[in-house]
């Protein structure tokens, strides 16, 4: 039975359960007119039965789905001839893959022999059986749970409290997903990174200056042993981030100042939404613009003044990234500037200072922590930005501070290492997770710092 059909059936059962529960509570007191004799509103008895009908069955279903493929695979392997079972793990996985393809009628990469055909039939048999069992168990559990709950209903049964307790747990579960996501990120990145550091020493990764992640596929292949010194990547990331910040911070800050202090309401009303449009453009579009418009333009301009600009220069990526970050800097600076009490501004103006003096000598110093916090968040955004650099920056890991040359970044390398076919035991693939760990740790520190500074400062003037 398809899982969608099963879910539909469960939904039907739950609806039925609701009406049964509601009906029973009403019949206990002798009809709809006698509601007050019940502890809760009749609907709550219905919900109570429905919850007991559906929740255990859904839990069973999700657990079953998680384990199903593993159990079935193990059963199929156990049923294979001995010669197959003794194969090394990689080959065995390939074989299982082929059996699965064979079972679902897809293309198979090797010649099919009898035992594989048998295994495929067996696999299909197990799958059908598993689905039948699941359907039987889930529907049975639903009926059982519903019936038990139905029997418990009586006049004094506190159905509302029971239902609300379940809802409360659901709400808690929903809010815990954020924490689970963080744990998931940390664990998934950490485990693979540890496996990487078992193959490549951490010191080599952190302090090595050559990055060339090509590892030999066969043992007898020439060259390419792979070296994983990540310094060029960190340097490249820092270079592009600095270029972006050099663009974004002054422009963003001055924009915020102009819009907060000088512009008329009409100009502000037009300019602010326009800048928000800038913030809403997908990064892949910025990347396209950087690679196909800005980079060629920089190259030809460079040629005409006699500077050799690489077609994948750090400058192009940094410039466009800076423009992307302008709205972020300007809106966070805007918040910081507006949080400064107007008494301070009025006092400075009243003493005869010009607007620019008020700004630079009174408001900006007062708003500085907030602005710095905003800049930290912007830096974290620039470091983690992927599409612009993937499309406009290079792949070659050059250790250089020259913005006209091509550099590569941490995010570019993660994408390059993980796009395409992967082998999860090669240092090359695992390196991406080590880089991901670095990226996560660095941006996390910047974010925690930035968010706490921004928040603390905002509270100070509230």
């Amino acid at each position, binding site marked *: 039975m398809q899982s969608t059909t099963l879910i539909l059936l469960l939904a039907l059962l739950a609806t039925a359960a609701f009406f049964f529960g509601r009906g029973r509570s009403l019949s206990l007191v002798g009809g709809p007119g006698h509601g007050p004799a019940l502890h809760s509103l009749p609907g709550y008895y219905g919900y109570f039965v429905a919850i007991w009908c559906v929740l255990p069955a859904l839990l069973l279903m999700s657990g079953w789905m998680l384990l199903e493929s593993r159990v079935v695979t193990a059963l199929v392997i156990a049923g294979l001839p001995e010669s197959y079972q003794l194969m090394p793990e990689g080959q065995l996985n390939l074989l299982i893959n082929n059996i699965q393809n064979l079972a679902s009628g897809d293309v198979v990469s090797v010649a099919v022999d009898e035992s594989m055909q048998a295994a495929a039939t067996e696999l299909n048999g197990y799958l059908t059986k598993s689905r039948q069992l699941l359907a039987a168990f889930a529907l049975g559990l639903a009926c059982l749970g519903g019936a038990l709950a139905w029997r418990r209903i009586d006049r004094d049964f506190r159905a509302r409290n029971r239902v609300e307790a379940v809802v409360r747990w659901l709400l808690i579960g929903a809010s815990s997903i*954020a924490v689970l996501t963080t744990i998931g990120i940390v664990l998934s990145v950490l485990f693979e990174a540890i496996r990487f550091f078992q193959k490549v020493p951490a010191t080599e990764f952190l302090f090595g200056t050559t990055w060339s992640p090509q590892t030999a596929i066969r043992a007898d292949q020439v060259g390419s042993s792979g070296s994983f010194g990540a310094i060029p990547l960190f340097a490249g990331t820092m270079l592009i981030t600095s270029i972006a910040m050099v663009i974004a911070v002054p422009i963003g800050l001055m924009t915020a*100042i*102009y819009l907060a202090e000088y512009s008329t309401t009409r100009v502000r009303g037009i*300019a602010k939404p326009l800048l928000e449009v*800038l913030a809403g453009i997908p990064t892949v*579009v910025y990347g396209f613009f950087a690679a196909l418009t800005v980079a060629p333009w920089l190259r030809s301009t460079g040629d005409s003044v006699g500077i050799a600009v690489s077609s994948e220069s750090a400058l192009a990526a940094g410039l466009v990234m800076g423009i992307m970050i302008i709205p972020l800097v300007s809106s966070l600076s805007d918040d910081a500037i507006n949080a400064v009490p107007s008494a301070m501004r009025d006092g400075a103006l009243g003493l005869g200072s010009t607007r620019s003096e008020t700004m630079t000598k009174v408001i900006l110093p007062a708003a500085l922590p907030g602005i710095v916090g905003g800049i930290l968040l912007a830096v974290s955004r620039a470091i983690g930005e992927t599409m612009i650099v993937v499309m406009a920056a290079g792949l070659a890991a050059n250790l250089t501070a020259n913005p006209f040359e091509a550099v590569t970044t941490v995010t570019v390398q993660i994408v390059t290492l993980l796009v395409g076919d992967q082998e999860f035991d090669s240092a090359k693939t695992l390196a991406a997770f080590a880089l991901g760990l670095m990226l996560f740790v660095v941006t996390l520190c910047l974010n925690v710092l930035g968010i706490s500074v921004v928040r603390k400062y905002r509270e100070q003037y509230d």
Partner: protein
Amino acid sequence: MSDTHSTAEKVAAGLGRRRRKEFVFRTLGMFATGVGILFLAVFFATLIGNGASAFKQTFMKLEVELSADIIAPGGELDLVYADFDGLTRAALRDKLPDASGRSQRREMYRLLSAGAGYQVRDFLKANPHTLGTTQTFWVPAASNVDMLMKGNIDATIDETLRPLSDRQIAWIRSLDEAGDLESRFNMALFTNGDSREPELAGIKGAMMGSLFMLLVTISLSFPIGVAAAIYLEEFAPKNRWSDLIEVNINNLAAVPSIVFGLLGLAVFINWMSLPRSAPLVGGLVLTLLTLPVIIIASRAAIKAVPPSIREAALGLGASQMQVVFHHVMPLAMPGMLTGTIIGMSRALGESAPLLMIGMVAFIVDVPTSFTDPASALPVQIYLWADSPERAFAERTSAAIIVLLAFLLLMNLAAVILRRRMERKW
């Protein structure tokens, strides 16, 4: 009294300098604001300049004789293996009789798109009785013909430097003069999946992929996000755990999106062994990515509901849960929906995490379910941007225009929702 006099003098002496400074500062501010807006203008101008032409496509008129000799040599029409290209080529030979020799003919055939034969096949499939008659078709011309007609190929430069030879250009000009070339609306862009031939490549596959992904994302992230926001605002006790969740959500909102891709790869694909390249996995990753946005917006919306509403309901005997679900949530709904739409528009534009979970493959078929291999609109843009052909650059811009149009619609909906439904207390 001479002291004040001298102070006033000092102030007056410095006044010119200070006013100049003020002027410079103000101009700098204006300039900075202008830079952002100027970029936006340049950006849209380039985009529309590059992409507008992709919505038109050159078609070629061919009188194709559906000759049974070529496509049904054994008397039986085989729709899969018959040589439909032979028909269109013969029709083109009739149009341009001056091509002689194999190499010249091969050059001539390159004016035709690979899609021309398919079009004839589809026509025959729908109208089998036309076998043996002569029909007029408007078939797509090859992308180089299209580029020449749009003026993107410079015919004056040396022959070896351009993709069309002098002879091909002469043919195209003669076809054009005879009225056999026509620029029409490029339906293929919206009805086809991806293709290696620019004139046949479309974004339907990518759009369907994005649609499936967004369906998964919205059906998970809206209920979960609203539930989390309700718990944190209305029920959570002020303790360590709530603080932890709070800090977590704020941080997650700023974690680079590519890290979510790594999570998706490690957890959904390797650990739970869900299929690669599937919109289901993409949707799950985007759910985690958009949850913080939705939670933060929903919390703000709940906070905006005045306490008097809650107190009135509590005073009338409602339980806390009833207060929240009967009164607070409906009043906060516009704000929550606005946050959800903004989260969805972020999800629609996101591509970095999708690269990690294998949605970047070349996929021709239009996906029809949540587990089919699929691409997404931004990823399609990324893929096309990498293609060297000039015609793909044009289509990339067109795909970007479509993507931005969707984003604009979503944001407009959010703005209207906010204006219409949000109450001031």
